[in-house]
């Protein structure tokens, strides 16, 4: 993942004395009988880029709209910078939002769009002009101030929308799928730009997205949402390497899940037996789980080694199978290997050498061995 942040990492969530900038306490939002957000509690700290990640309809946008003031919580409390936000209309909140559709006013030029928020505060004209020019320079749109939104490309519109929401120097910026409408190349480029701007201005970002790559690139922390609930909060690497549930493991990246039971449960290691694997899985860290509970072993495809020869030890953490499918993706190849139990396992392998006839690579219907390091599997209990 990208790391444009300075080395002195800001991790206020690890400091028990740190005061959260946004406190979301047991917030519920119902639309009729439908529960969009279900008793969510969350603390977000100053200077973070916090990503709410989830499939569409999981309640992430509703949560964002409650922060902006477009929806009132049915129950619970939201406070920003120590102030309770109940009953405060959007136009009085110290918050600005960048909309998924950008919501640029079609009848106003770029300059008028950006100046709109400042005019609402009745700032002097000279100051408005100055600040608009400065923010347009920051997003590299200086030459476009006289254009109307329909005269701009998608990427330019996105930058104007960003400028408009930043020009009031909000302490908190809400971004609803900020890169959703851009094509892939532009998106990557803009991701870095967003992070740079965020650092330069020291604004707290709360980003809603359904795109895990976007969340991984931008976020200091990610909150994964499902059916109105926050299922896991953590840094991108926490979420990817230590998912706490099958849902998170499966939703973020791809994963092989094996159902099984703990056969050895020690504080510093566990052993899991699964009907789908002939040999047990040895995990070199402890698991907190009630005895006899069903557990799942989550194994990322890139952490499995595929080879023709059997590994040194056949005692555990390996399996034998036949290659069923190969998908060549350029940078990596995906192998689907069928084990003796009938279970298919997904394995990715970087293509470190150029493919050619001379290169003898593993191919269809070959007998192969899969193996992995004892630190790789993650045991989840739900």
């Amino acid at each position, binding site marked *: 993942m990208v790391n444009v942040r300075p080395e002195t990492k800001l991790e206020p969530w690890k400091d028990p004395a740190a005061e959260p900038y946004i406190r979301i306490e047991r917030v519920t939002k119902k639309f009729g009988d439908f529960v969009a957000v279900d008793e969510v509690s969350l603390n977000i700290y100053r200077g973070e880029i916090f990503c709410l990640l989830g499939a569409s309809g999981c309640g992430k946008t509703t949560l964002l709209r409650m922060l902006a003031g477009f929806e009132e919580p049915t129950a619970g409390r939201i406070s920003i910078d120590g102030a309770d936000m109940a009953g405060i209309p959007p*136009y*009085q909140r*110290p918050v*600005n939002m960048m909309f998924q559709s950008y919501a640029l006013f079609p009848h106003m030029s770029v300059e008028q769009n950006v100046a709109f928020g*400042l005019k*609402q*505060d*009745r*700032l*002097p*004209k000279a*100051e408005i002009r100055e600040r608009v020019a400065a923010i347009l320079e920051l997003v590299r749109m200086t030459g476009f101030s006289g254009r109307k939104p329909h005269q701009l490309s998608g990427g330019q519109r996105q930058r104007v929308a960003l400028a408009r929401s930043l020009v*009031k*120097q*909000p*302490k908190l910026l809400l971004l609803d799928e900020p890169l959703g409408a851009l094509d892939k190349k532009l998106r990557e480029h803009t991701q870095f730009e967003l992070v740079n701007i965020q650092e330069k201005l020291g604004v707290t970002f709360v980003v809603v997205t359904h795109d895990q790559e976007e969340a991984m690139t931008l976020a200091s922390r990610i909150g994964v949402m499902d059916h109105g609930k926050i299922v896991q909060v953590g840094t991108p690497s926490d979420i990817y390497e230590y998912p706490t549930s099958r849902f998170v493991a499966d939703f973020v990246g791809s994963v092989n899940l094996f159902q099984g039971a703990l056969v050895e449960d020690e504080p510093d290691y566990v052993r899991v037996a699964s009907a789908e694997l002939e040999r047990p899985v040895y995990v070199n860290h402890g698991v907190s789980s009630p005895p006899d509970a069903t557990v799942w072993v989550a194994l990322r495809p890139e952490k499995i080694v595929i080879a023709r020869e059997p590994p040194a030890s056949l005692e555990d953490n390996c399996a034998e199978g036949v290659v069923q499918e190969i998908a060549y993706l350029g940078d990596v190849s995906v192998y689907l290997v069928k084990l003796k139990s009938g279970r298919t396992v997904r394995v990715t392998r970087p293509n470190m050498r150029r493919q050619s006839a001379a290169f003898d690579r593993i191919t269809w219907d070959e007998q192969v061995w899969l193996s992995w390091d004892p630190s790789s599997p993650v045991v989840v209990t739900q």
Partner: protein
Amino acid sequence: MSTVPRSQARRQPPVFLAELMAWIRAFGPYRWASGRLKDWGVTGRTLVIGTPYLWLVLFFLVPFIIVLKISVSDIRLGMPPYEPLLHWVEHQVVTLKINLGNYAFLFEDPLYRNAYLNSIWMAATSTFFCLLIGYPMAYGIARTSPSWRNLLLMMVMLPFWTSFLLRVYAWIGILKNNGLINNTLMALGVIDDPIVMLQTDFAVYMGIVYSYLPFMVLPLYANLEKMDLTLLEAAADLGCRPMKAFVTITLPLSIPGIVAGSMLVFIPAVGEFVIPALLGGPDSLMIGRVLWEEFFHNRDWPVASAVAIAMLVLLVGPIMILQYNQGRQAGAHR
């Protein structure tokens, strides 16, 4: 607002507009009025909802209650020509006198039943002919090149914006005994004596079809223009001939447009007064005309009111329920 406290400190002196606003705000009566409004809990929201609401209740809902009331009153000579419902007897006792005779009269006299059925029949027939003429037009416009399309659409719109009354009037000159059609046919030697067309049901049909044709073409066009033409390519690719593709693909997909257009023609045609009055004969009975004559010629307000209520219950009610259900279905599909 509170995001920029630094700059709020040196706010610009109020410009002209702000000054004016401040002056208005300081103005005594304004302050008094807005203060009272606030006391009563009147907000911008209540004003936005309340103003049109009040208007509609006063000038749309209340009138129907009055019509209902008069439809059960007795006729009398004088102005207004109906008896009050409530009678004060010996200071205190109020007697309510309801006369359902007007309704009974509607059912007894076949004139009203015939007029009612005839209106529905004529409106339905005219709607059918509108569809017959309008569909090829809408289809043709939707399938021509965009520059022609705008011109043709304008040509459909033009009669739509021109006086309805004058367009009906034009048909008098065409249909009468020495009118355009008869003169042409006699000059060509096709006929020797003029065909009587004016003051017949035929003239009424012509008038309705002609007047409401744009109402049929426009929604049909909107529907056909939206259609995905790759569907027809797919049908052709799968071996379907154009005529069959039209019947099995285009026609079913245009049903919403057909329904919308037919409603727009049928609904106003049923209650039509001008067309039967100008083009129809004395026996071209349509319910709108019957109500008109009951009111203006017989000056029988109670019976006219009863006719109105009967029309409302038997005609407008079903149409509104139909529309409401359609709206709900459309909503459910979304």
